[in-house]
């Protein structure tokens, strides 16, 4: 049993700059995948969440199906689906990054839609009635009254989901995208020091996710001085967005 931490000292730049941040010849990158994925996934999630809340059956049921379908299937399966389907539909091979991004947006949108739904439902019904009574249309009510309040309530769950997505991006390495996990794989195959290598990236992942979860706790207290933080945690668990 002997450790060789020199491997990490020699390769940390490749791991962090290329793997984590995504600057380098290979493209990809954990953060460069995670950030667009959460933004686009959230936008799609709002649409699906609103559809699910609709009282029209032909809008409501497809959204329910979408959410239940993607929540019942492993993410790896979804990534393989897009890996296979995109060349079939577009007729050309796309880079691993684009395939992974598409898969993550579509998959995460199902989970984000549930967060959006819980957030919208957390806005008291009276607000909608008041807005309607005040003469606002459905779109205006949503845009100016409900969503601003709902998004504020969603932020802790959204950060939690972002942490989950950040961890999930490691699966992009399965189709060969150069992220932190793939970078560690590459180095560890060359240097034959898997123990040190995987422990090192575990710590890097942990630093990122842990600081995000602290940020989330801080924001929760910061944004709602009127409510005790413990109460908010209970609310979050009740709405289904348990901590990652």
């Amino acid at each position, binding site marked *: 049993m002997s450790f060789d931490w020199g491997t990490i000292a020699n390769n940390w730049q490749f791991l962090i700059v290329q793997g984590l941040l995504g600057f380098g010849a290979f493209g990809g990158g954990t953060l460069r995948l995670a950030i667009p994925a959460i933004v686009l996934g959230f936008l799609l999630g709002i649409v699906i969440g609103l559809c699910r809340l609709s009282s029209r059956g032909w809008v409501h049921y497809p959204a329910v199906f979408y959410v239940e379908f993607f*929540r019942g299937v492993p993410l790896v399966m979804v990534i*393989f*689906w897009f890996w*296979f389907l995109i060349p079939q539909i577009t*007729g050309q091979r796309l880079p691993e990054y684009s395939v992974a991004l598409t898969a993550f947006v579509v998959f995460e949108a199902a989970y984000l839609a549930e967060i959006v739904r819980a957030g919208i439902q957390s806005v008291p019904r009276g607000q909608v009635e008041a807005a309607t009574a005040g003469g606002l249309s459905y779109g205006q009510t949503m845009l100016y009254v409900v969503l601003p309040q709902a998004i504020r309530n969603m932020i802790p769950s959204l950060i939690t989901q972002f942490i989950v997505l950040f961890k999930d991006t*490691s699966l992009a390495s399965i189709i060969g995208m150069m992220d932190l996990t793939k970078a560690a794989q590459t180095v560890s195959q060359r240097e034959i020091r898997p123990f040190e290598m995987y422990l090192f990236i575990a710590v890097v992942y942990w630093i990122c996710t842990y600081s995000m979860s602290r940020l989330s706790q801080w924001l929760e207290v910061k944004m709602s001085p009127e409510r005790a933080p413990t109460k908010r945690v*209970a609310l979050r668990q009740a709405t289904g*967005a348990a901590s990652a």
Partner: protein
Amino acid sequence: MPLAGFLGMQYDFQWSVLWTGGHGEWLIQGIWTTIQLSVLGWILAGLLGILAGALRTVPFAPLRALAVFYVEFFRNVPLLVWLFFWYFGVPQMLPRAAQDWLNNHGPEFWSAVVGLSVYHGARMSEVIRAGIQSIPKTLLEASVATGLSVAQAYRLIILPIALRLIVPPATNESLNLLKNSSLALTIGVAELTFMSRQIETYTAKAFEALTAGTLIYLAMCVGISAIMGQVERHFRIPGLIVRAGRAEH
């Protein structure tokens, strides 16, 4: 069965690849491995979760710190990294004899079991902790005040409520474990996703192979959550427990 023009693409559907040429057996073996992996992982994760949860309440700071470290470190790092760590990293650090034993007993499967259960044990302990914390202390005090012994209060009041609170999120977490067992394909465990991919490789029929895998996962997840939904409804206390939404994967 040629079916041109699906989403504008030319694709020959051949659903028979799923049951001819021994591929049906592959799928069944894959399902069986997935079940073995998930059930073993689930039992160990449950034990680790309870252990870590219990350690966080003992009046001895180093043990509490150990439990906090375990939970916070293991659940905040991707499972895939843990699988690589347990499969590629740990064996080289073991004594020679242990390495030999492992190599003779399918290192892929056991690494996957350890990886899954350690990761999900950390998450499970959070589920259990949240459930216990949501029971007010006054409930125990009130039970004792009405003349129950502490043991009776736990058996008749606290546990029946705690279990009802924990079962829904624990069901989600169990489904997450089932879905996450698919990552074991990366270290060469021949579970369901691995077998679907293998059929795809051998027959070049990706659509059929992926459909089979997807539908089987979907059936398992929907089936389990339907059964657990029934259980929850059967045992619910009116006005006390709201059906909680599902946690993230």
